[in-house]
């Protein structure tokens, strides 16, 4: 396993569990008639956002590379930092007792175990940890909110914001953290101050701060198009030879050998369509808000994917919608090119791949435009989608105590605190093997990588001990592509849609038609029909509503 769970790796795990792709969707539907649209770039929010004070406590082996505004690659670590720097002096808590609820995709550790006890001692509070089954989380939480019985501290992942009606919870059941964190107030919590501003924005509703971010990143992309670097290298093909959609299609032809059971492609749509200059969802054209469904470019992108599906270069199992085995097909060399979240590029992928083929090496194409002209524009998703919240019923001193605890939990990668949070006590829960903290039996039983880090965690880093090639490849690819990343319209803005708009926003019928098209079952014209129906049955109203209530009032947020 990887030494730490960075944000995107986590997302790729949960995506397979809950069947959600970690797309940078920015809209969240909210319940009730409360039609508040809450923008993240209102002037009031700008003054509420915390100051950003990067931490220099621990130096990365491969430094982060800055791109445009709010864009930055994740730093890389080839070894686990050996000098355990403590970033928090003293004990943060004052002896309070609090209940926490976080989703967990894994075995629930026993209550009051040795790891929890060690953490409570270090934190100076008693956190009553209640991890809940991640697969049922979206249905567990609404029962608590309906009864107005939220725990003191809870993780509410943003991809479920609409399930949780988060826009309505903010300020009614969740505490406003603005007075404690805005501007220079955050300097009281240096590890929280080191989290990027965008991450705080993604936890803001209205002009107030609510969410405490975990696993934030400045390189937030939905994913990219990967290829089997070992196979392509052997054929003398390099990534930068592919400069357009045509190049990719030709490569597909060259690589496909159906008789030999090899098809060039697995599904690529989700991460390829931006090559046609299609936005994640919204675009502003001459001051007018445009939905991607209204764009010719989307149809062009679909046309190419329809051709791909009917060309015979796309694996039949992908056409049959079998996504769960996409990894196996890729490892076994039955497919050579496929889309995936950035989280796919990690140590466990490397281990699975090399188990199937010792030469296995993952690579990714640099972003290109479909026609091969100009620079690609890749729109970023939210800075984080993992946010925790405090209960509104907590007293100010209790909130301060928990923020001090959050500050401890957000200690940077490799610090003394980070090591305790992620690996437990040395000698009890882990031992150092070749410089890498390695779990003991006690550690395997009690230390789950996603309990405390789901309350607060530092920004993502890339670290794959024992798989240096992964860290080097991934950081190099990020550095080469950081220049293409842009903030999309409504970036990091939380928008509560009225319930009547939520169905149009989800646009299930159009998304179904799109899927049928890129699997070669429906020509583009039928997607066009579905879009026409969508527009008349709520789509146009949605666009108008977004234009009037969000764009005109709050701007683009870019």
């Amino acid at each position: 396993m990887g030494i730490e769970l960075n944000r995107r790796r986590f997302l790729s795990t949960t995506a397979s569990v809950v069947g959600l792709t970690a797309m940078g969707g920015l809209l969240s539907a909210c319940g009730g008639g409360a039609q508040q649209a809450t923008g993240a770039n209102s002037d009031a929010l700008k003054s509420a956002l915390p100051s950003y004070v990067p931490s220099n406590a621990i130096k990365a082996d491969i430094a982060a590379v800055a791109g445009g505004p709010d864009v930055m690659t994740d730093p890389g670590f080839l070894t686990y930092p050996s000098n355990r720097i403590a970033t928090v002096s003293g004990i943060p808590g004052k002896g309070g007792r609090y209940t926490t609820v976080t989703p967990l995709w894994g075995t629930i550790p026993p209550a009051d175990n040795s790891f929890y006890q060690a953490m409570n001692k270090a934190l100076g509070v008693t956190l009553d940890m209640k991890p809940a089954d991640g697969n049922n989380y979206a249905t567990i939480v609404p029962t608590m909110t309906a009864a107005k019985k939220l725990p003191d501290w809870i993780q509410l992942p943003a991809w479920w914001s609409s399930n949780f009606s988060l826009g309505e919870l903010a300020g009614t059941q969740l505490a406003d953290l603005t007075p404690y964190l805005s501007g220079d107030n955050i300097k009281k919590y240096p590890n929280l101050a080191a989290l990027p501003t965008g991450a705080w924005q993604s936890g803001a509703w209205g002009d107030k701060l609510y969410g405490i971010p975990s696993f934030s990143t400045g390189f937030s992309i939905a994913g990219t198009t990967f290829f089997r670097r070992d196979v392509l290298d052997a054929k003398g093909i390099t990534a930068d030879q592919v400069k357009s959609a045509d190049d990719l299609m030709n490569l597909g032809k060259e690589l496909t050998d159906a008789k030999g059971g090899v098809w060039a492609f697995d599904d690529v749509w989700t991460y390829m369509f931006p090559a046609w200059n299609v936005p994640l969802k919204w675009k502003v054209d001459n001051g007018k808000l445009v939905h991607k469904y209204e764009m010719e470019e989307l149809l062009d992108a679909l046309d190419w994917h329809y051709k791909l599906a009917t060309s015979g270069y796309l694996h039949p199992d992908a056409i049959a919608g079998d996504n769960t085995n996409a990894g196996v097909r890729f490892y076994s060399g039955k497919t050579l090119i496929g889309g995936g979240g950035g989280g796919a590029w990690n140590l466990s992928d490397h281990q699975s791949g090399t188990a199937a083929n010792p030469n296995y090496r993952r690579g990714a194409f640099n972003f290109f435009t479909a026609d091969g002209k100009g620079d690609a524009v890749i729109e970023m998703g939210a800075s984080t989608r993992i946010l925790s919240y405090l209960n509104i019923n907590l007293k100010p001193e209790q909130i301060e105590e928990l923020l001090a605890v959050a500050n401890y939990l957000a200690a940077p990668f490799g610090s003394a605190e980070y090591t305790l949070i992620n690996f437990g006590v040395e000698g009890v829960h882990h031992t150092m093997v070749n410089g890498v903290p390695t779990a003991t039996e006690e550690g395997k039983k009690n230390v789950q990588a996603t309990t405390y880090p789901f309350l607060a965690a530092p920004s993502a880093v890339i670290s794959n001990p024992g798989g240096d090639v992964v860290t080097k490849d991934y950081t190099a690819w990020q550095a080469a592509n950081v220049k293409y990343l842009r903030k999309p319209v409504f970036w990091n803005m939380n928008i509560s849609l009225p319930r009547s708009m939520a169905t149009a926003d989800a646009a299930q019928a159009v998304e179904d038609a799109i899927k049928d098209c890129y699997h070669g079952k429906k020509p583009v014209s039928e997607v066009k029909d579905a879009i026409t129906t969508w527009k008349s049955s709520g789509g146009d109203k949605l666009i108008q509503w977004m234009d009037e209530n969000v764009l005109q009032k709050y701007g683009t947020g870019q």
Partner: protein
Amino acid sequence: MSTVDTEPPARKSGRLSLRVRLRRDRSLLLMTVPAVALLLVFNYVPLFGLLTAFQDYNPLVGVWNSEWVGFDQFEYLFNDSLFWGSLGNTLYLSFVQLVLFFPIPIALALLLNSVLSERLRNLIQSIAYLPHFFSWVLAITIFQQMFGGAGLLNQFLRSNDISTWDIMTNPDTFVLLVTSQAIWKEAGWSIIVFLAALAAINTDLYESSAVDGAGRWRRLWHITLPGMAGVIMLMLVLRLGNALTVGFEQFLIQREAVGHEAADVLDTFAFYYGIATNNYSYGAAAGLFKSVISLLLIWGANKLAHAFGEDGLYRK
């Protein structure tokens, strides 16, 4: 096991007072309490949730505080072409399954009943039961591995330069695919109830008819089939009552393979266009519509059974 012509005890007890019957049957009644409780908790209490079909349900404020919208959800539903498409698919699938699937377990049971070696019979039975215990995910994976575009059959065809056969992703033949999957998975299990009916037939009848010179087919026609008629009718009534329930997972899993237009049935419709998009009330409306029609169907089928002089769900 009682024989078919035994007078049921319920008839005789009609003359006793309720108190006496309660006392006499108290152990039996006690034994049914857990099942009844289960039914109450998981089938009757959730009926309360049907209220949401008449609301714009918001989970945050709960059922009591959600806005009442009357029949609005049903109005949207009946104007939704996707809903009618799913209903059409459901009815079509149900009809095809009734014609192709329903007779198979009966035939299998008769066939199995004619096998004399008990050992062989048990073996066949066990093999036939086995797929029932597979989940749909596994069953469909097996089909995909065998008949998929990259499966055993097509790779064989490909390696012999024969054109491939699109079985798993062809929307036009999807109905045959799902029916054959259902037969493979469930036909073996469904024979149990028919075997039980066969076992209940008095063997003396066969002996005396054989003595009278009746051949194999005559015995089948005049003894076996009439002996099974009650059970067949009961199963048919249940099948008709469940005509709008053709399965969920099987379609959910294969929805991407053939597209939503071929694969959406009422249950997946309620899931994708209701629950998955947080439009709970819409899903509830679709579900309620299905339940009402199902109730009418089961009532009608039961009437029909009684008209034919059979028991149906209960004895008239």
